[in-house]
């Protein structure tokens, strides 16, 4: 076992040994097989976990249906773990583990069915359609992301070019991220309300607040990534600060920029969702999450959760694709 992992990742090591076999093995390892296996494993665990997680309710349903269960009353079962209850009443626990209306843990197929039903199964204009809600959230996300990226890049440029900005802004940018956004989101909304800003902008501003930080950090790192020699080269040409920025700092920072954009868009999505709560949570994935939670609709919560994660994955994938195209055109193979 020693070193079966090491040589494969070492450039120049190990390829010779197994020749084509190694190449083939690599393509399998980089392919979908591992992901599918892991997903399959997780789903299996998930299904299995449904049994004890939902046992209280399953057994209660059986009791109400007149079956004898042990212990006999809900009060007696109160302190028991789900696993213990399931073990004592295997039949009852199995019978309704995957079909409850308000399960503690919905089964995968319930979530999948709800996701399918509320996306493909409905017109996108319907208020019950997740596509509609995802769009509401997405629009705020994108606007906030655009603001956040612009703000982040501007701050980074300032920080890189001015010592005062560097010394005074950076520590406070870190502090700003330790402030719980959910606490100040309502205040931001109210303040903006009172100056007449409503709708998408307040949500976008919360997205901005969350997404500017990764961009600042990444861009400062990126704009400072040219080494002394690359900078000296331009000095030997008598280049001015402006030229140095456009010809050296900016192109050198692009890989860093994209890495932080990927984090930034996720932060932005979370910001938009958080921002939906104090705006009356009338529409959007956050509203769906909350509405699901008012009425204990666990299946609805889970499907909204997955919709949000899928949206994030798509956005990150999109940025990744842009990155690939751009960086390849620049000869920096990602």
């Amino acid at each position, binding site marked *: 076992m020693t070193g079966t992992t090491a040589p494969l990742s070492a450039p120049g090591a190990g390829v010779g040994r197994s020749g084509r076999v190694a190449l083939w093995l690599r393509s399998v390892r980089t392919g979908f097989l591992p992901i599918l296996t892991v997903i399959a494993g997780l789903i299996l665990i998930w299904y299995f976990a449904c049994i004890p997680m939902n046992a209280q309710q399953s057994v209660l349903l059986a009791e109400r249906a007149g079956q004898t269960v042990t212990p006999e009353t809900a009060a007696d079962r109160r302190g028991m773990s789900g696993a213990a209850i399931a073990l004592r009443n295997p039949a009852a626990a199995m019978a309704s583990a995957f079909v409850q209306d308000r399960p503690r843990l919905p089964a995968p197929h319930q979530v999948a069915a709800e996701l399918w039903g509320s996306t493909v199964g409905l017109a996108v204009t319907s208020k019950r359609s997740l596509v509609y809600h995802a769009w509401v959230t997405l629009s705020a996300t994108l606007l906030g992301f655009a603001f956040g990226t612009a703000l982040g890049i501007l701050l980074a440029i300032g920080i890189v070019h001015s010592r005062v900005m560097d010394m005074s802004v950076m520590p406070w940018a870190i502090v700003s991220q330790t402030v719980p956004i959910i606490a100040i989101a309502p205040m931001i909304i109210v303040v903006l309300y009172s100056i007449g800003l409503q709708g998408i902008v307040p949500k976008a501003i919360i997205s901005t607040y969350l997404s500017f930080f990764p961009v600042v950090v990444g861009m400062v790192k990126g704009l400072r990534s040219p080494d002394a*020699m*690359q900078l*000296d*080269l331009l000095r*030997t*040409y*008598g280049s001015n600060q402006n030229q140095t920025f456009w*010809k050296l700092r900016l192109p050198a920072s*692009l890989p860093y920029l994209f890495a932080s954009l990927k984090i930034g868009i996720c932060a932005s999505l979370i910001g938009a969702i958080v921002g939906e709560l104090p705006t009356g949570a009338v529409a959007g994935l956050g509203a769906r999450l909350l509405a699901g939670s008012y009425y204990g609709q666990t299946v609805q919560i889970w499907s909204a959760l997955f919709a949000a994660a899928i949206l994030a994955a798509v956005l990150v994938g999109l940025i990744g694709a842009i990155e690939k195209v751009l960086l390849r055109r620049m000869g920096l193979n990602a």
Partner: protein
Amino acid sequence: MTDTDLHPWKNTPGGPEGRGAAPPSVVRADGLNLTFQTNDGPVHALKEVDLSVAKGEFVSFIGPSGCGKTTFLRCVAGLETPTGGTLTVNDMSPDEARRARAYGYVFQAAGLYPWRTIGGNIRLPLEIMGFPAAEKKRRVAETLKLVDLDGFEKKFPWQLSGGMQQRASIARALSFDADLLLMDEPFGALDEIVRDRLNEELLALWDRTGKTMLFVTHSIPEAVYLSTKIVVMSPRPGRISDVIDSPLPRERPLDIRDSREFIEIAHRVREGLRAGMDAV
């Protein structure tokens, strides 16, 4: 900024005319001192360096690691500010000379920008100095041919071998045709065969254009083979321990290195180096 500042190629002499007259001093250092302030005390990198380089000379700098070769070249380039003494480049301060784009600098590592093609890298100084489009194109093509890289214009640096990258970086320094070339171990990373070839070509270029060369190397044969003047340096504090004028002819086939004259100069350089080391 004046018009000539923006369009420096307008008054680039370009050819070897005027070489017949008494050569003017291109670089002149008088009692040059440079001390770096570091966390654990000052480092005396250059001490009382006196040197005068005439137009058209090929000067090599040789000396053990850390003796101040790079530092001296950086001072000439205006990238480092001496803490004492005077230094002029073309009778200007090094900083003025830098702004006037008086020299081309080849760093020890190729240092090509990875997001630019080979052609784009060579075009970089031309863009910054504001050459017109047609001129840029012409010069890129010309210098690419000079270093034997035509056909590779569209390739990215990592698609080339180390030796080719090094040649591209030399082309970049040549593209705007400065009269003075500062080269810091340009061939350090190359194997002996490729190095020999590039040495020959560099010599031919120098002979053809009459540029002034300041050349840092670790290799004694290289220094002897290339130079009209060899500056031997010794460390801590960095100073010049010997200046050897080469009696070798301008025409130098590669096998001149097996000649007795050559071996004698090499021996003198080696002795100079050793003496400098033992003095420490």
